[in-house]
């Protein structure tokens, strides 16, 4: 084998310029795919992080039918205190769950005494919410990242549009489940930037204020946002929670529930899928580049060495040895392209991190793109390139191995 590798490498150096050009082409393809996948992975990771760590949580538990009606924030599809107790017990039993936050969501009217507008409010236990959404504090652009009873955190859309400042007293008016209207005076303690863009109308108040406003005796909960210890375990934990809650429902302990991961709750998931499709397209482009370039160069190599092939065949070299000789040559070309490509791609990724390019997303500005060198991803791409290099070599190598020595020796 070492002899075949030696012959292959020497034949590549024999046609140095052609081998270098082909290896460069493969390398450029590898660089493009590795850097694109790293950058797009960093972008989607950052965006998913923003969505899950500042707004949604990794997964959410609702009463069945709630998500389908979420635009109306229905107060009729709530988890009762008994339901919540079972859900909490279930979540605490899951080793993959880090924290969770109960939310009482409702629609309200917001007034600064001169103007009134609609608002979506989240009644929360602040400590739980902050623990479950570690990036929420960073969204509070004015005021303190705390929430006491009697206070409200409002979206900056309202603050800017209605000229509301920190410390101002505002009135929140809401209709409860029975249809009666109630109002509460609250002090603005924070202004919240919205992850999704300028249309955000979500505010926060303490859950006890929310219960009081909605005239609830016991806390009913619209949704429970859950944070996991390991995001990569999302599907497993979601499945386990779903299964455990289903058993509780079957046993008649709670109402029917539904468990959604962030993917089912955020439209950004479709963007992430699109980015993955683009990455796959780039990989397919790489496959085409490697296939065509390796096949082309190996065909040329075979045509140029017909007499050599005839000679070694005449001497008694077995067809499979001749086949191996050319396959190893194509493989070596692929390895060369991969080594150059991976090295340059890794350097480019490190370079991007040194430069630290920033971008804006929605109302988030100055987000830093930090792609990482993913060795596993590099290994997969390298494996694909090697496989395709071998596939591209098989036809020319087979042609070489099937040559009749007597005809090959006649070749000028």
């Amino acid at each position, binding site marked *: 084998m070492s002899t*075949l590798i030696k012959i292959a490498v*020497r034949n590549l150096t024999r046609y140095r310029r052609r081998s270098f050009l082909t290896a460069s082409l493969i390398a450029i393809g590898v660089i493009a795919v590795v850097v694109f996948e790293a950058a797009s992975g960093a972008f989607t990771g950052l965006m998913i992080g923003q969505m899950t760590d500042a707004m949604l949580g990794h997964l959410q538990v609702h009463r069945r039918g709630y998500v389908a009606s979420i635009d109306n924030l229905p107060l009729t599809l709530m988890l009762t205190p008994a339901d919540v107790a079972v859900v909490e017990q279930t979540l605490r039993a899951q080793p993959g769950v880090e924290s969770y936050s109960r939310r009482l969501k409702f629609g309200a009217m917001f007034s600064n005494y001169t103007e009134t507008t609609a608002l979506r409010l989240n009644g929360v236990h602040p400590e739980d919410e902050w623990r479950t959404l570690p990036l929420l504090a960073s969204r509070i652009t004015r005021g303190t990242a705390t929430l006491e009873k009697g206070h409200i955190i409002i979206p900056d859309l309202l603050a800017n549009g209605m000229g509301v400042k920190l410390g101002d007293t505002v009135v929140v008016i809401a209709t409860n489940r029975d249809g009666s209207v109630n109002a509460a005076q609250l002090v603005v303690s924070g202004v919240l930037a919205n992850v999704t863009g300028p249309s955000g109308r979500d505010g926060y108040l303490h859950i006890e204020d929310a219960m009081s406003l909605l005239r609830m005796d016991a806390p009913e909960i619209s949704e429970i946002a859950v944070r996991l210890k390991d995001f990569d375990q999302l599907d497993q934990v979601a499945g386990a929670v779903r299964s455990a809650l289903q058993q509780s429902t079957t046993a008649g302990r709670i109402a029917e529930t539904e468990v959604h991961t962030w993917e089912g709750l955020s439209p950004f998931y479709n963007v992430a899928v699109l980015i993955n499709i683009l990455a796959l397209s780039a990989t397919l482009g790489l496959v085409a580049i490697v296939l065509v370039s390796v096949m082309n160069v190996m065909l040329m190599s075979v045509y140029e060495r017909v007499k050599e092939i005839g*000679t070694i065949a005449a*001497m*008694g070299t077995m067809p499979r040895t001749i086949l191996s000789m050319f396959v190893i040559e194509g493989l070596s070309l692929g390895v060369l392209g991969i080594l150059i490509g991976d090295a340059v791609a890794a350097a480019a990724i490190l370079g991007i991190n040194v430069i630290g390019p920033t971008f804006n997303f929605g109302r988030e500005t100055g987000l830093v793109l930090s792609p990482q060198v993913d060795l596993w991803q590099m290994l997969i791409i390298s494996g694909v390139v090697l496989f395709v290099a071998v596939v591209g070599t098989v036809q020319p190598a087979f042609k070489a191995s099937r040559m009749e020595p007597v005809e090959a020796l006649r070749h000028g």
Partner: protein
Amino acid sequence: MSLIVADDLTKTYTTGTVRMDALKDVTFTIDRASFVTFIGPSGSGKTTLLNLIGALDRPTTGRLLVADTDVSTLDRRAAAAFRGQTIGFIFQEFNLMPVLTAYENVEYPLLLIQRVAAAERRRRVLALLEAVGVADQHDKYPDQLSGGQKQRIAVARALVTNPQLVLADEPTANLDHANAALVMSTMRRMRDTLKTTFVFSTHDPRVMAEAEIVFRLEDGRLVGRDVTGAAA
């Protein structure tokens, strides 16, 4: 004792509806350890006959025994295996692998065809390079060698597997007189030492004189067999 027995060999090439007999009813025998040449003008069938003897091609009709093997019945793989074990080849244009050094070219058949162990390979390669007088050129690549040196390396490569038969198609055609004489004397010496049968083709009268037996071919027919003074 005969190493090669050819009985009524005919080789016909067909192109479309045109049939051309490259060899017709050729019958001969060649003994072991002979130094034999086939001569004749271009197109007389010399190369075709060497190709048949070397199991590179099959006769259309007739029987051809080489080292007690009927080479006309061998399939592709069996023919390759037979060549690798029994026959060494020397080519007019040397046909050394340009990416291998002189040493590696001679070593090639032992390594990739006969799979001989490293120590034995080294011993045989160095001995043959020494015997053909190019030991000091062992680390040179073919493009760094003269024609005579290349052909002597080709002789070493043909002999390194200890074949029973060496076939050489116009081995001196690309050499000047001095190098041609050197290569022929090397081949002859190797035959004397190793008792290998050498069969070659030529149309060079000076080379013919080196052969012990000369077969003459014309238009695909064997028209004569001469025993020369070299046989004495």
